[in-house]
Each structure stands twice: as structure tokens, then as C-alpha cells.
């Protein structure tokens, strides 16, 4: 079966069995190893990516449902040289310990901040309720997401200023 989807801005044609989890396609076919295999049951959140702007658990998502959809992985948020605001905030706040959960955390955060530029503490926690961290860096992760919200807001303010100036 051939599935056409957009991954991090690039149109892709994927030849895969339709039941293949999106996660396997990303990691196996496309060598995008940011999203992690954690539990394989949609319980831990380490495989989180964005599909059409929403946080989705890629281990639970058969690729047959991806026809025509747009997928963003953590690789799509920025580069090592030029990290995106969520990535920059996680680095600044040193939010990773072992780091296994972090790509999923960042994607959930990105999806949240795209919809809600200024989330309350409760809204951040609500969004993260399906992302687990076994190291216990939750407080830094929360701080990083608050910081990411600031960075995104100042970036969009700068953009607005640049546009008018």
C-alpha cells in the first residue's frame, strides 16, 4: 500500500503495510528517530508527534489513517544550529535527564502552544497528562514549556514589529 503524507514539510510516498504504526514508518523508513518507542500501548507518550497540528501517539496510529495528513516530528521543530522555541526552551531549562520522553514532551508542548499561546499551569499539566517521565524532571519540563511560551510570544511580537517596520 502506498500512503502519501507530508512529513516535516516534505511530501512523502510511503510503501508500507497499512497496519504499520506511524512510529515505525517515521523511524524505520524515514530515519526520523526523534519519536521513541516506549510502551507501544499509548500509555507513555514518548512516541508523540503532531498530525495536522494535534498531538498524536504515533505507536497507536496505523499508517493507513495518514493518507493526505501532515506530520511534524521533533526534527521538524528546528535544527541543532537553529533550534525552535520549544527546543531552545528545553535546552535553556535543562529539562532532559535521560531524555527518552523529551521528544514526546516537546511535541505535546508544541501542539498546546500552537493552539493556546499563553496556557495556564493547569492547562499545561492537562495537556501533558499522557506523557510520562520516569526520571522525575517534571518541574523542569513545566518550566521549559512556560519558557517556550515566552519565546514564542516574543518571536511573534518581533515578527509583527519587523513586518510593520
Amino acid at each position, binding site marked *: *500500500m502506498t500512503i502519501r503524507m507530508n512529513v516535516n514539510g516534505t511530501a512523502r510516498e510511503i510503501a508500507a*503495510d*497499512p*497496519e*504499520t*504504526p506511524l512510529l515505525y514508518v517515521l523511524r524505520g523508513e524515514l530515519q526520523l528517530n526523534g519519536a521513541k518507542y516506549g*510502551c*507501544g*500501548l*499509548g*500509555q507513555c507518550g514518548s512516541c508523540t508527534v503532531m*498530525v*495536522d497540528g*494535534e*498531538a*498524536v*501517539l504515533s*505507536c*497507536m*496510529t*496505523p499508517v*493507513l*489513517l495518514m493518507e493526505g495528513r501532515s506530520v511534524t516530528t521533533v526534527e521538524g521543530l528546528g535544527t541543532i544550529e537553529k533550534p525552535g522555541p520549544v527546543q531552545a526552551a528545553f535546552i535553556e531549562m535543562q529539562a532532559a535527564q535521560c531524555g527518552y520522553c523529551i521528544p514526546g514532551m516537546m511535541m505535546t508542548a508544541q501542539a498546546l502552544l500552537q493552539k493556546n499561546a499563553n496556557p495556564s499551569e*493547569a*492547562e499545561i499539566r*492537562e495537556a501533558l*497528562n*499522557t506523557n510520562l517521565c520516569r526520571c522525575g524532571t517534571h518541574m523542569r519540563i513545566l518550566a521549559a514549556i512556560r519558557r517556550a511560551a515566552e519565546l514564542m510570544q516574543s518571536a511573534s511580537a518581533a515578527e509583527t514589529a519587523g513586518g510593520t517596520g
Partner: protein
Amino acid sequence: MRVRSVLLVVVLVLVVAVAGAFAYAWRSAIPEQAPQASFDSRLVKRGAQLAAVGNCISCHTVPGQQVFAGGLPLATPFGIVYSTNISPDQDTGIGRWSEAAFQRAMHKGVDREGNHLYPAFPYDHFTHVTSEDNQALYAYLMTRRPVRHEVQSNQLRFPYNIRMLVAGWKLLFFKAGPYANDQQQDAVWNRGAYLAEGLGHCGACHTPRQNLGAEDNSRHFAGGEAEGWQAYAINESSPAPVPWTVEAMSFYLRHGYHEIHGISRGPMAEVTGNLGFLPDEDIEAIATYVVSRMGTHSAERIKRAEELQADAGGQVRSVPAADSQIVKASAAASQPGEAIYNSACASCHESGRPPPFGGLHFQLSTAVNAPNPQNIVNVTLFGLPPADGEASSIMPAYHAILNDQQVADLLAYMRQRFSKSPPWQNLVEQVRQTRSGEYRVTIRPADGIERGPANIGAKK
């Protein structure tokens, strides 16, 4: 002259009627009382258990806000009723209520000042609560933390916003009085009936309501609706594929799940969360009563239930843990819903691991066998959010993955494969309305009452 005298008579009759109605509806205020200094701790403890039976916290608390401070909006066909502050705050709560005022509210549906209470407060059930139990409830509530919180006014349409009219409603539909033991039944059954029909007010959700919002007693326990969820029939028409036993029901009410019946969710999760505080004998009594209401079952139905259980592998214990790799995902299918089911659902729901941490095999699922698919629409779109800091059942939300047509295809396939009931109609539209929030659904974690948030995923 004749016209004038006829008019005069009409006016007189009207005046007398209105005055009579006022006199009928009028209730005196019960004087305010300074808060009682202390209560017997045993009484308070018993009151805590009774408050759990009554599930008071669910309606009288906005999720994530202060307990018993009220303000939760209850959508009714007549408008919105906001729950009252029943914390012992002296100005905005019930801090100045005497026990007599509390007893009257429970037994007669009248507040301290003499206002008729809207039957969103289920005094049609609470009237059965004994004075001794009310005394314990009063002691419990009066020893909670007072919360100063002025609750906003109800938003009811005319004429429902005229409180006096509630007196007329009561005249028609409200039978005050204690629970009378059924002499044909034993003490356990009667204890269960007292709890379930009284403080537990099961029928408030599980009995359908007629046009004026009263429970339709001719269809007792025939199934109702609450906060966007179907409260299944719990009488002879229970759609459970495997008939409930007292043992299974007791387990479910205590733990919030049963391995061949599934997980309690929606508003029922709050109920089972609270009932966990009860002593075993009270839980067993409620289960005894409710299961007896479901009637006896034909040999054929029991045989079918046994086959379903064997077939579903619900009893298989050889699988140590849920694992997405045990059931090979396959999209081989003759219809789109089957492909989605096989590739997205089967790995958990046919893993052989029972609830709470494995998915229920749908052959055993009440949701798939229910006349209305609303509950499974809700769970498919919004999932089961996890509890905070404790092990709980979860299910990932699929709203971002499946479009309305795909959810409808999936559920139609599951209905066809796992139920002998006729197909559901207009699934796509029902999914669309649920997703858009046109049909309002409340999604909360199992432990969500005090923690909040008010709603997860679903449109506010």
C-alpha cells in the same frame, strides 16, 4: 352591568386562586443559628460515608475548585441550574443552617429561608433518608472547611424561573416520606434499596425523565442520560452481554471496573470513586438490590454469556502483560471499519489482558451492545484520561487521528461484529455533534472531582 359582574367574579376567583397558590407554596424560614461548636467524631465519620453514597461532592464542587463550594452548572432542558455552596461558610454557604433546616431541605426540598428548591437537587430521593443519617450528613458538612463563594444565579427560562411553581411540580411528582421496607425481601435487599433509592439516587441518572423533568417511574431504571453520557438501563433491559451478578456488581462499585464488564467512566467514575469509601456490607447491599432489579435470566442468555466469555478469552490468564506485539496487527479487511479496528484497536482489546490495564474484549462490552452509541463515541474521540499519581485505566483519545466518517465506520463494524443488536443509525452525524461540542460531553479523569480540570479534550 352583567359583563362587569362577570368580570368581578373572574377577578375574584383569580385573586383567590393566586392567594391560595401562594398560601399553598409558602414555607416559613427557619431561623439562622450560630454554628455548633463541635460534633461527635463518630457522627462525622459516618456522615463522610453517607456523603460518599450521596455523591454530594460531584454536583456541589466545580472540578479543581474548593470542595462543596458549589457553582457547578447543570444543564437541564429548562435552563442552567448552578449547584449551591454547601460548605459551612456563614454568609455564602450553609453555615447558619440549623440541623432542622438541613433535615427539611433533604426531606421536603425547601431551603432555610423557605424557598422551594429545584429538583436538580434530588430530594425526590433524599426524602427517603432517615433523620439519623441526615444528622450524620449535617455533622459531616458542618465540619468541612468553610468556603466563601457566592454562586451565580440560575439561568432558567420563563416560567421555570418562578420558584413558587416548584410547589406545583411537587404536588404532581413529589412523594415525601421515608423508605418503607419491602416485607417480601430480606434485610440486605432492603438496606440496598434504602441506599440506592434514597441517598444514592441511582435513578436520577438511570431512570428516564418525562417532559417536566420528573423521573418516569413506569420506566424505573430503564436508562437515562447524564453530562453527555448514557446511563445504561439497570433493570431487565440491561444491555450487558454477560448478566451482572451481585459479586461482579460489588466489585465494580468498589473498584470502578470489572474485568468482564469494563471501566466506569463519565459521571459514573465519580460515583464508583466515592463508593470506594463504603463498608463492604453497604456495597453488597446496593449490588444485591440493583442486580435483583435486573431480574432473572433465561438459560439461553446465561449459556450465551458463558460462550461469550470463553470466546473473548476474558478468562485467559496466560498473558502476563498487555503488549502491542502479542496480537499481530492486520489491516486485512473487507470494509474500512474493520481495517481500522484490526490495526488500531485489536492490539489492546484482544490482548487477553482484562481491564483495568488491558482493553475489554468488545464481545463483553455493554457500550457496543447499548441502544445508543454515545458512550463509545465519547471514549473513541476523547479517550479515558489518566488519574493523577495513581494507577488507573487509560485509553488514548483518537479525535486527532480519526475523522467523523472513520469513527462511524469503526463503530459500525464493531456493532456488527460484537453485537446481535441492529446497526446504529446516523453515526456520522452523532460523531460530528459530539466532536464539535454541539452535543456537550464532560470528560474527566476518574479522580477528577477535586483535582479538576473541568473537562479534558471535549469542547467546553
